[in-house]
């Protein structure tokens, strides 16, 4: 039984990635592949919609951290939205909430990119 699913959609020059379930060291490769796929396709405006993400460990957070510099060098960004309270607490514990934009919903997150471009 798979505990983690990932899908994405492209809205103009913004990729929205939907991690679902339990993201840990066992399934982090699939999450990394999805981020890499966007970068390889020159899509560097990335929204991670966490509405169905129940759990994240440092493995998943490491991927969000590891590609941020490359993405920002290419004038893009990673924004997170719809993060549930428990998962937000974990992001907050390591200081991600100071570095990344955490938005209430996908529309607000994508609008942030549209307002910049």
């Amino acid at each position, binding site marked *: 039984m798979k505990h983690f699913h990932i899908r994405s959609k492209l809205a103009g020059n913004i990729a929205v990635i939907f991690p679902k379930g339990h993201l*840990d060291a066992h399934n982090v490769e699939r999450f990394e592949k999805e981020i890499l796929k966007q970068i390889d396709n020159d899509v560097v405006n990335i929204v991670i919609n966490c509405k169905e993400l129940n759990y994240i460990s*440092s493995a998943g957070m490491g991927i969000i951290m*590891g590609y941020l510099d490359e993405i920002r060098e290419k004038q893009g960004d990673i924004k997170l939205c719809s993060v549930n309270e428990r998962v937000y607490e*974990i992001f907050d514990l390591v200081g991600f909430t100071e570095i990344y934009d955490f938005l209430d919903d996908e529309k607000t997150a994508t609008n942030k990119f549209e307002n910049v471009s």
Partner: protein
Amino acid sequence: MFPEKPELVISIPSKTELLKMIVEMTKHIAIINQFPPSDAQKVALALDEAVTNVIKHSYRGSMDENIRVEFYCHAKGIKIKIIFTGVPPVLAKAGIDLDKMIKQKKKGGLGVELMKRIMDSVEYKTEENINICEMIKWKTQES
């Protein structure tokens, strides 16, 4: 303070596919032990991080090694011991510089920090080629 005998002992092979099971079980044990759900999830995450480190660093990804986890419960908190062999872990210094890690494009280094920020104490020791990670979380007064 904690009982000499663990309340629960599990012995698992060093497979990351078992991490979710460990997390769910730990959450359950912490909740039974009167931790609020939010703290129970964090304690489970700390154990996930500790076990992931064992698999990744001490066992270098080998899947047929053994990891023993012991849970000691007390009215005031929970103690978890992770017992393993392999390469002895080196506990990183406290504190991380997130901006620096981002600039360095680092993907690792958050796990131990999470363990330290979640738990009230995290200690590693190695005796006769056996490594032990001992973590304690006390309940807050509201729990």
